[in-house]
C-alpha cells in the first residue's frame, strides 16, 4: 500500500472569513514506512490526517491511493488526538469496534480484541468503561483499537499527547513493538521532535498555517530500534536541524520577531 498527496489544499468557511488550513501539501509514503509529521500548533496536521483518511474532502488537490490488487479505498485506522473512545462501550467493545464494522462475528472479534487488550496490559480492565481508566490507559486502548483491525494504513494524531514523559517512553516502546509485528504504513503526528526521530523512518516538517511541508528528513537509524540505547551523534544533529526549522515556523505563526 502506498499513497500520495498531490497539491492538497483545505480551507474552512468560518462565519467571518475563509480560513486556509493547508496549502498545496504534497508528499508520498510507501508501504511499511513510519512517517512522522511535526509542525506548529494549528498548522493543519489533524486536517491533513483526516484528508488522508477520507473523513473530509480537500478543497483542491487529491490523495492518490494505491492498494495493490485491491479496489476501492484501502482500509485505514485513525487514532484520534483525544483518543475518541466511546464512553458507552466497555474497553473490549471499543477495541472490537473496528472489527464489528467489518462484520466480524461477535465471538471472534471479542477474542481478537481481548488478545490485544491483554498485550498492552489492560486485561483486567476489559470490562471497564473508558472513564474508569487513567489517561494513559485510555491512550493505550485508543491505539490497540486501531491496531486490532490490522489496517494497511494507520493514522495517529498525537496519540501520546497528554502523557507524562515516563509513560510516554514506555508506550513508544509498545508502539514500536506492535508496529514491528504488523509493519503497516504509519503516519504519526506529534509535537515531540525526539519522539518523531526515535520512531520514524522519515520526518516531515510543516510550516505554520496555512500548512505546507517545508522539509523532509530521513532518519538513518537501524530497525528494530531500542529506545533505551544511547543515540548516535548524527541523531542529535538531525534533531537540531528539525528544531531550528520548527522554531522559525512557530515564531512566525506566533508573530514573534527574533
Amino acid at each position, binding site marked *: 500500500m502506498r499513497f500520495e498527496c498531490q497539491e492538497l489544499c483545505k480551507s474552512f468557511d468560518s462565519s467571518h472569513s475563509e480560513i486556509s488550513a493547508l496549502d498545496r501539501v504534497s508528499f508520498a509514503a510507501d508501504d511499511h514506512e513510519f512517517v512522522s509529521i511535526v509542525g506548529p500548533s494549528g498548522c493543519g496536521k489533524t486536517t491533513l490526517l*483526516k484528508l488522508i483518511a477520507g473523513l473530509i474532502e480537500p478543497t483542491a488537490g487529491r490523495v492518490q491511493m494505491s492498494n495493490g490488487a485491491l479496489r476501492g479505498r484501502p482500509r*485505514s485506522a485513525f487514532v484520534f488526538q483525544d483518543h*475518541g473512545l*466511546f464512553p458507552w*462501550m466497555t474497553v473490549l467493545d471499543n477495541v472490537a469496534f*473496528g472489527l464489528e*464494522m*467489518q462484520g466480524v462475528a461477535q465471538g471472534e472479534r471479542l477474542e481478537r480484541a481481548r488478545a490485544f487488550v491483554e498485550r498492552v496490559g489492560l486485561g483486567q480492565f476489559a470490562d471497564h*468503561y473508558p472513564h*474508569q481508566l487513567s489517561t494513559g490507559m485510555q491512550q493505550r486502548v485508543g491505539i490497540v483499537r486501531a491496531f486490532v483491525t490490522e489496517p494497511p494504513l494507520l493514522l495517529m494524531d498525537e496519540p501520546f499527547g497528554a502523557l507524562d514523559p515516563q509513560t510516554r517512553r514506555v508506550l513508544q516502546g509498545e508502539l514500536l513493538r506492535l508496529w514491528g509485528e504488523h509493519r503497516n504504513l504509519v503516519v504519526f503526528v506529534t509535537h515531540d521532535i525526539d519522539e518523531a526521530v526515535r520512531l520514524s523512518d522519515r520526518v516531515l516538517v510543516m510550516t505554520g498555517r496555512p500548512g505546507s511541508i517545508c522539509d523532509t528528513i530521513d532518519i538513518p537509524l537501524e530497525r528494530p530500534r531500542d529506545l533505551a540505547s544511547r543515540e548516535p551523534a548524527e541523531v542529535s544533529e538531525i534533531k537540531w536541524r528539525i528544531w531550528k526549522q520548527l522554531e522559525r515556523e512557530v515564531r512566525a505563526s506566533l508573530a514573534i520577531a527574533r
Partner: protein
Amino acid sequence: MRNNHLGTAPGSKFERWGPLLTIAGALLLWEGCSRTDLITSTFFPAPSTIFAVIMGLLLDGQIATHAGVTLARVLAGFTLGGGAGLILGLAMGASPRLHAQIDPLVALVHPTPKIAALPLILVIFGIGEAPKLVLAALGAFFPILISTVAGVQQIPPTYFEVARSYGAGPLNLFRRVVWPGSLPFLFTGARLAINVALVLTIAAELVVGQSGLGQRTWFAWQTMRIPEVYAWLAVTSVAGATLSFLLGGLAKICMPWEHIRAVKRR
C-alpha cells in the same frame, strides 16, 4: 468523597434515615394538630384516619382497579406521544434542515399549557377514552421531542468521525453512536414526559369519565368525603413515584456506563 455541610459522609446512618425522620416528624405533627383540632380536622383529617380509608379502598379492590385504569391510560399516552416525539426528535437531531423547518413551530406550541386544550379536545374527540389518550400523548410528546433533539445534538462530533473512520454506515452510526449517545437525555425527557402524562390524565379524569384516580378524587370531593380525597391523592402520588422509580431502574439497566459514573461521583 462528597461531604454535606454537616460533615456527614454519604451512606452514613444519618443520610440514610434522615429523610424518613423528616417525613415521620411531619406526619406526627399533623396527627397531633388534627387530633387536638388545632387545625380543622374536617379539612385536614388525621393521617391515621386517611390511612384507614386507604386500607379500606385497598381491601375492596378499588385502588387496584382505578390505579390500573389510570396507569394504563398514562402508559398508552406516553407510548404514543413519546414514540412520536422520539422519532421526530431523532430525525430533527440528524437533519439540521428539518430542525430549522420545524423548531419554530415547536417553540411556539410547546409553552402553551396543554390542559387549556382540553375543551377543544373534548369537542373533537368526544368523551370516551380518546380525549384522555390524546391529552396525555400531547403532554408526553414535547418533553421527549425536545430532549431527544438536544440529546442527538450534544453528541461530540468526534464520535461520528471515529465511527465513520472505521467504516460505519448510517445504520451502525445510529445503533452505536446516536442511540447510546443520546440515551441519557432521552431518559431525562422520559421522566419529565411520564409525569406530564400522569398529570394530564388525572386532569382529564377529573372532568370526564367514570373511572380512574382523578375521577375517584373528584367524586370523593363531590360527596364531601374529605379523608377519601386525601386517600386518592396519596395513591396518585405513589403511582407517580412508582412510574418515576421504574424509569430510573430501566435507565440503570440500559445505561450501565452512566450508572457507574454516577456511583463514582458520589
